[in-house]
């Protein structure tokens, strides 16, 4: 049994020790907001926060996250209020197909926690997730908006 704390709730999972956190979230806990894109830590679609750090969940076993605070896109809002990064994403109309955006948002939340007023260079360095739709300019604008909020 693996004990996970996901979005503040303790969960118990009967999964293999090597099952990636991504699949535990998506297929066992049905938290499908975290996306599969590559499975090899190359795209960032699966990014979640583990103790506040942006982490590519496809490439870390669920068992390695036991006892740590896991935050997914579903757990970002507080009650009815969206996180300021989510609000900025709407204001900047960042998503196109939207599939990469959970991961982009989680990466941005981690960046802003670390660097509240990031420069463009900070954004270039921290935001390495792929957006196949090419929404990078809107994502950059959204991060600056969230920083100013």
């Amino acid at each position: 049994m693996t004990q996970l704390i996901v979005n503040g709730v303790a969960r118990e999972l009967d999964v293999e020790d090597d099952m990636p956190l991504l699949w535990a979230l998506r297929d066992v806990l049905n938290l499908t907001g975290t996306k599969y894109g590559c499975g090899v830590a190359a795209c960032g679609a699966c990014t979640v926060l583990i103790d506040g750090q942006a982490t590519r969940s496809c490439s870390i076993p669920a068992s390695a996250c036991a006892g740590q605070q896991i935050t997914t896109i579903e757990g970002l809002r507080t009650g009815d209020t969206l996180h300021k990064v989510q609000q900025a994403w709407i204001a900047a109309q960042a998503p196109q197909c939207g599939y990469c955006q959970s991961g982009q948002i989680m990466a941005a939340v981690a960046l802003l926690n670390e660097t509240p007023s990031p420069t463009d260079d900070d954004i270039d360095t921290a935001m390495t997730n792929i957006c196949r739709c090419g929404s990078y300019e809107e994502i950059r604008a959204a991060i600056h908006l969230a920083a100013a909020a």
Partner: protein
Amino acid sequence: MGFQPSRRFAILSGLAAAGTLAVGYALTPFSTLGRARQIAAGDGDFMPAAWLRLTPDNKVTVFVPHGDMGQGTHTALAMMAADEMDADWTLVATEQAPADMAFANGAFAKGYLLGDMSIPQWLNGTTEFFGRKIAEFMNIQVTGGSTAIRLTGALGMRKAGAAARAMLVRAAAEGWGVPESEIAAKASVLTHAASKRSATYGEMAGRAAGYDTPDAPLKAKADYTISGTPRQRLDIPAKVDGTAQYGIDVRLPGMLFAAALCSPVAGGRLKSVDEAPARAMRGVSTVVKMDDAVVVVADNTWRARVALEALKPEWDDGANGSLSSDSIHAGMNAALDKGSFSTDFSEGDAEAAIKGAPRVVEASYKVPFLAHATMEPMNAAAWVHDGKVEVWSGIQDGLGGRAATASLADVPMDAVVMHQLQMGGGFGRRAFSPVLPSMKARHIAQAIAASKATGKPVLVTWSREQDMTQDYYREASVARMKAGLTADGRIAGWLHSFTERHDPPEATRIDYDVADRTARYVSDTNPMPWGPWRSVDHTHQAFYIESFIDELAHAAGQDPLAFRLAHLANAPRHKAALERVAQMAGWGTNEPGRAKGIAMREAFGTIVAQIAEATIGDDGRARITRMWTAADPGEVVNPATFKAQMTGGAIYGLTAALYGSITVEKGRVVEENFPDYEMVRMADAPRHEVAIIESGAKIGGAGEPGTAPVAAAVANAVFALTGQRIRELPLRQFDLKSGGKIARL
């Protein structure tokens, strides 16, 4: 005019309730295209396809017969309908129209019937379109060819909105006993000023629902209140909190999860596989052997994958087992040498004009295969039960997907229920029209087989590796360009020879002033599976044409912009777009270590003039620092989305120009995942300034045109910077410092 269509006021059961106004038309019945043309051509402008629903609570729902892949189509189409209806935009919502004939995309058909456009070949396949029944043609809900706004919107949504408004005005007039001309309709409220009466649209919906739907006149553009203004996309809130449901997110009671491995060679067959190692593993329900694939079904995707990896299937590679990128390109060159050409277009006598010219310029170009690499890998859920086949998937074409499913499952269309979900990118990969090979939807076939084997709903999710190696690729191709130049530097004769021709018809057209011009091609040079890829033939043809124009400018000793403008005396819109982008970019001046390249393409009715600014990185590779686009779509519905499509489309094209290459060895695709098939990311993304020119011409597309000119603009910038002419993509194979190739791709 002969045959009159019966205009049927169609109400779909389940949608209509008391007091609800539903506006939509189905054109019924007709059976042949000739007859349909007669009908449509003689029938003025009336074949609305899409649906509006107004409920007593004053809410408007627009049912959109297109998938939304992130281009903002749903919102833009709703804007067009709401504008004509004079609806309160805050009361408008959209829904995906069911994959049902009642919502078939009649406006799409009409666009072709009226000769607005020729049918794209990728819908046509090898079937002779003109011999096909119109009923089959109506069986289309495709999202592709940048057609949603141009056809469904311009011909369908606006008409439906205007009709709804007219019916509501009539309802108010009759209800209050006053002339229609005294009724004002604005923001979903009807008012009669003289008697100080007013009612919401919703309050009049019940009465209006009893009327025949009129062919109401459309607004003048000057009266638009919603179209042309930036509006927040209605689909975005669900895309920032994880609630948007993509195909891969389907969760059904009792559902199982599957992983698939297809024959590594296209056309190959499964010879044998020992299923035992997988069956013995935890959570595995079954192993399904298909002709060309092995599917493992388990209680979650991870277990299915691990079990699949334990299998050692043996494949019969078939005829394609010895293919390689080199052999394919060699075959293309041999076919061009042999010269059994089909004529794409021919005006004047290109060969004679070139022969008579004092200078002749020649160049050949080549491009590799490209994968779509949608962010969401292919997936589908199926549940075969009670004589039905239910499918859940993100598809560009609901009815086409339903037809493909019927053929894959060998059941009648009526037995198929299609649940169309959000798409994590489409770009042509998720279009399954009835005339594309149904193999293209093989993930759906796998889900059906897995559900049949287990009796449960099953979601098949392809790994990225399967997605990339089992794609339907933008073809590799070769072009040989030849043109004459007169003594005063004008083009005299244009001969464009290339391999493979798909779609759209205008992809090889040149807008420059050259009287003698020929484009011709050889076929059957591409043995790999082909599929439409964002902007289709424009992706490579724009690279060939606009690079070669640049070469001609250089040979003539002229500035590339001035040379283009000098050949556009008869194309004022193209000229204006180039002039605008040149002004935006400060053409003619460069920062140290940087240079600009220019290219222009008209694709899907939109003219896109682009400038890219290149520099060379420490690794000797090209970097694109800034881009500028001036685009003339005639008219724009949602400017913010249009701009996002221009910048996003450019990123898609830039990824292809800089990095994109799918190679084939021993019949197998070599690149399997993003580290091998790199993408432009944030740090590589140029700052991109976009200007929209609303020339008032017929409305053009947004999703694809922005991709077309990028490669040429980039290659031309590299030439301006280094003097090295790039005739082969992608750029990452070139060391621009030494002038050599970094590595063979």
